[in-house]
């Protein structure tokens, strides 16, 4: 199902991973900046505590959502998250987080996730914007900055006749202007910090105007990560995840990182 509307300034959120505290701050910040709409590019669950605290915020604030791989799994009560990890340690931690999230997501929330569209097209002023989770061709494809050449991204955008493609899934934001005035943007995630030693998380503003056909602004989201860490501990979530929230360095999901992105982290 494709939702379509015309707008000139939008907020794109990705990968909430149960971090309802960061979601609350990001929504408030985006509204303050006068956005026409807020879109969430999927993966509401994983990693953090209290999955069901995310959904009232999404609905109360009219966040338009699409389905990520995690949402598809939770919505359909599958056995795993389909995250695309290959390393046994990464899969071990992903499974703990998935089992917790599935167990703590209500029937109504699962139904909501199951029925979400997998992509959304938006007219951003004169630009045709395609929103999807991993890539336009695969929900769990990792599009890292250091393994996505321009000509490959141009191929993906042209294949879908999109001026701008926005994705998430990897957990690390980037923006690449392309030939023919096309753009590719990874909007980052709200669920956990970016493996750079900072505790804040990110969302992305996309804006078009007569002066600037496309302005991409990455917005840092400062939230009460001490509280999140405390709640994660109370819920019995592994210490490795809590460490990431507290330090800003990834401790799991490391083996999927390409060399350049891996080098930027501590572990």
């Amino acid at each position: 199902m494709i939702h379509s509307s015309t707008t000139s300034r939008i907020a794109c959120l990705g990968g909430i991973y149960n971090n309802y505290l960061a979601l609350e701050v990001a929504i408030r910040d985006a509204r303050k900046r006068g956005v026409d709409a807020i879109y969430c590019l999927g993966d509401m669950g994983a990693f953090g505590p209290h999955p069901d605290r995310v959904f009232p915020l999404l609905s109360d604030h009219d966040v338009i959502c699409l389905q990520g791989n995690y949402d598809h799994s939770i919505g359909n009560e599958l056995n795993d998250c389909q995250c695309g990890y290959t390393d046994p340690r990464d899969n071990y931690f992903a499974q703990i987080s998935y089992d917790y999230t599935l167990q703590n997501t209500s029937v109504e929330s699962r139904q909501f996730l199951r029925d979400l569209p997998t992509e959304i097209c938006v007219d951003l002023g004169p630009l045709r914007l395609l929103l999807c989770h991993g890539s336009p061709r695969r929900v769990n494809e990792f599009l890292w900055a250091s393994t996505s050449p321009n000509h490959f991204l141009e191929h993906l955008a042209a294949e879908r006749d999109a001026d701008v493609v926005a994705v998430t899934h990897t957990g690390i934001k980037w923006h690449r202007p392309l030939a023919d005035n096309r753009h590719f943007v990874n909007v980052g995630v709200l669920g956990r910090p970016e493996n750079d030693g900072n505790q804040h998380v990110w969302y992305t503003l996309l804006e078009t105007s007569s002066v600037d056909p496309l302005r991409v602004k990455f917005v840092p989201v400062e939230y009460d990560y001490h509280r999140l860490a405390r709640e994660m501990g109370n819920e019995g979530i592994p210490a490795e995840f809590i460490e990431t929230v507290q330090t800003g360095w990834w401790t799991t999901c490391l083996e999927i990182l390409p060399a350049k992105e891996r080098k930027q982290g501590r572990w």
Partner: protein
Amino acid sequence: MTCKEEIPSVEMSHLDHLWFQISGTFCNLTCHHCFISCSPQNDTFGHLTLQNVKDRLEESVALGVKEYYFTGGEPFLHREMVPILVETLRYGPATVLTNGTIFKDEWLGTLSEAEIESSYSLEFRVSIDGFSPETNDPVRGKGTFQRALKGIVQLVEYGFLPIITAVRNWPDDQEQEVVAAFVDRLKQSGYSRPRIKILPTLYLGAETNRSHTYHPTERVTSGMLSDYDQTQLVCEHSRIVTDRGVHVCPILIESPDSLLGQSFQQATTPYQLRHGACYTCYQYGSICSNPSSAK
């Protein structure tokens, strides 16, 4: 499979991974399990030139290729390997599969600078085949474990984080223990955050002399492909350039039917999964790609 069963074909959805058989079948080692029997004397396939690579890189732009991989033989036996990788990093991410035994500091210095200047990752995949001299050297040759370990440390000193690839030659239930012991060994040697990729054995080439070839029943059938995610198969998204033309995948280059043509356009033809190695590829999935681009 009965003789009545049709051999299934796989169409390439898109050329994501472009491979180069850069040093042909020339290698400084003669590993007993090599699936294309590379050795210092094996000239079945020859080197590609820097110009060959440049031409194919330029062609790859219009095709929207995602990643470039270089294999052999031993790629660093190629005199122009360093300029080839430097050139490739202008186009996209490059991965080189090496035995890690013949690096020169000067090469690694140049490559380190090239990667820093590039937007793209340069990955080294260093092959070993046992996590100790006792398990590795009988397969790869005397002293090769220590030489490869030295190469890994050299890479780390130049700022690289090599992916260590090993063919599984231990029982499944010992894997965790075996890998943990190796990780400890790498850490002790100075590689503080080792990356590991475990590969299945391919019963082709030299390997058939030390173990066995595929049993005729080890074939992919049409039935097996129903509800199977075909993106797991290398031929669904890859092709490899050798000095003979464009082949279907890096594993099968010695099979005459693997040569699909001279141009990428000719090589888009669907490929029949008639080989035992296709069965291994089917069983394990994504056996040739890096973990960061696993399907």
